[in-house]
């Protein structure tokens, strides 16, 4: 179980999962709210600005 635990945070995807829900949750929420406000008419990059902030946060924390 311990071995599984250490592995649990080591893979890149786990890192992404962890930081997208904890470290960057504020930016994630802002992005989600943007989509929520426009979800009946979503086009490509409709929430580009919000996602860039979210993505930036993820890139700095995952690495």
């Amino acid at each position, binding site marked *: 179980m311990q071995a*599984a635990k250490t592995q649990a945070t080591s893979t890149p995807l786990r890192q*992404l*999962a962890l930081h*997208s*829900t904890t470290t960057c949750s504020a930016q*994630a*929420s802002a*992005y*989600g*709210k943007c*989509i*929520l406000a426009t*979800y009946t008419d*979503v*086009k*490509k*990059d*409709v*929430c580009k600005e919000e*996602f860039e902030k*979210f*993505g930036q946060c*993820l890139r700095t924390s995952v690495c």
Partner: protein
Amino acid sequence: MAFLPILRTRLPRQCRLSLRTFASESSTTVPASSINNPYQVFDRTAKRLQKDRAVSRDTGVRSRTVDYVRDEVADRMMERLMDIKRKFDTIVDLGSGPGHFSKLLEPEKTRKVVMIESSEQTLNRDPDEDFDVEVERLHADEEKLLDIVPCNSQEAIVSCLSLQWINDLPGILVQIREALQPDGLFLAAVFGGDTLFELRTSLQLAEMDREGGISPHVSPMTDTKDISNLLSRAGFNLLTVDVDEVKVGYPSMWELVEDLRDMGESNSVIGRRHFMHRDTLAAASAIYKELHGNEDGSIPATFQIIYMIGWKPAPTQPKPLERGTAQTNLKDVLE
């Protein structure tokens, strides 16, 4: 249905070569017939491998952890079987998995259960001691039921959360009816169309915004009203169809997706994309939480379950009387 096998063999073999794209997941041998055959939706080879891998992950620990949906549905299905006042000699469990439903069978209800499952590792996950009745395990493709059991041979066929991966659903229902003896019972539970709608919508919105297009990530599933039509079309009598929901809470989308993988329920739609961009996944997770999330920060996932009961026609079964043959006037009863 009879013309389908002929169609498959006559299709030109060489078009398989031109379908080859990137060297991705090699399990995807897209059947050459998939373009012309509307009944080819799922990649059965990929599904079998997914199930095998799910069971061998962490020597089966992960697979047992995620039994909760199937165990719950098996329990609810057993209630329906207990309502049927009949004792069986043998029950066939089609697409049994490790035997979620079969394990609940008691000697008062049946002497023996035959489990049929296409994933060998899933089939043999749990030892015989976990069962209260005699078990026979058959490693075979569920889609070719009549190759395994002869016509008019079975008293009862059950299926717990497996038929959603069958390509030709009308065809398998006909096969089940054929395999049953007259007045034989068919009882099944499948995932219905509202299953995982939260995940489906979140991924669609994320893909639209990030990539400008969508691709299938959640399977097409059967609607409730279609099930009763399909059952009567397959020739079953005395139908009972009802719908139920199992709602499960998860910390986030990531845990949900991981659990689905460990259940062996990953995407296996033919022509699916074999990777997802990190950005899209992160976006979907954020959208899932904002769009569907609970107040306490967790997220819900809906599993819609359709239960169906049908009987193979037999002369002994009760039938409606002919019009105008009633002896009692309804007016007298109601007054």
